[in-house]
């Protein structure tokens, strides 16, 4: 059960969750997982139109969506949800995108939707629980910049979730271990921050 403390408690007994997937069977699997996690209400949708109808009529606490829907673009659906700031109760709720094989063009679309996290299929209960816990504790602020509305896409302060290797080559792996060089002196640090003009 790497990445999740087996004794950590989660309480979804009041949570209203919306699950969206174009495949009936993938949806059945997500429903079983979320019910296992104890979600109070699980709503399901297989297409964009059905999802939009549910988003207009109900207030949710979490959306898990595979954006590859047969009747429209699920990426655009999430993007529009983030822009629906005129009193929509669902505009800023946590959204986890789940996707199977992704075309190169889908990766850029996924990044710009404003979803909180991206999970690659095949889905396992372990990974989904980790991501739900990560998303719920995510301290990144939301930003509105240009056409983008959603969580700050930079993991500068929070780092990748525990148990994940991160997405960048330079993501630090924990534990960091001991330093292999002596610490810099305060003088050296000062010189780096405030370089002095040198007369030659």
């Amino acid at each position, binding site marked *: 059960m790497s990445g999740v403390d087996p004794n950590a408690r989660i309480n979804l007994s*009041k949570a209203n969750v919306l699950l969206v997937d174009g495949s009936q*069977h993938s949806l059945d699997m997500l429903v079983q997982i979320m019910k296992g996690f104890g979600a109070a209400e699980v709503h399901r949708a297989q297409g964009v139109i059905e999802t939009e109808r549910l988003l207009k009529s109900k207030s949710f*606490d*979490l959306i898990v969506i595979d954006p590859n829907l047969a009747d429209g673009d699920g990426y655009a659906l999430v993007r529009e949800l983030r822009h629906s700031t005129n009193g929509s109760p669902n505009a800023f709720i946590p959204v986890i995108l789940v996707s199977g*094989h992704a075309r190169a063009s889908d990766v850029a679309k996924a990044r710009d939707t404003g979803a909180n996290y991206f999970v690659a299929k095949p889905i396992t209960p372990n990974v989904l629980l980790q991501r739900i816990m990560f998303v719920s504790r995510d301290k990144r602020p939301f*930003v509105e910049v240009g056409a983008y509305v959603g969580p700050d896409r930079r993991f500068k302060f929070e780092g990748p979730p525990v148990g994940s290797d991160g997405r960048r080559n330079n993501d630090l792996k924990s534990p960091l271990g001991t330093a292999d060089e002596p610490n810099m002196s305060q003088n050296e640090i000062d010189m780096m921050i405030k370089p002095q003009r040198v007369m030659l």
Partner: protein
Amino acid sequence: MSVVVRKFEPDAKLKKMLDQPGGVTAEQALSRAKQGLESIRENCLGATDEKIASLQALSSVNETGRGEKMYRLSNEVFAEAGAFGLSELSAVAHSLCTLLAAHEGSQPPRAAVAVHVEAMRALRRPELAGDKAARMAVLQGLRGVVQKFSAPGP
């Protein structure tokens, strides 16, 4: 040129909810989720077999949108077989998705598609269910064929 950035912090309703007293431990939650998945295993794998049959039917017809339909079906097989631990079948389906995505908007090479579908069918044969080495051999054989198809022409 300056860009206006608005930062704000939405209400952390989900976090408050998760942290409420009561609920279940992560171990209990995972155990119940796995039991739930197991309860629909046969039904889902039956559907996977139907999807493979549909892929086979589509692989031999000339139909508009055939590539997109096959991509969608193969993507479902990838996700659903993988979730139930059929990793070799999932890998073959992923390979077919990659092939179809590379030929998006054009006709995918019929022979390469057929090899993938045959590999999927072989992996679902009951005699291979308990034979990891045979399943790996099917996967290895497919990888060789894919390399041949993706090699640059003379």
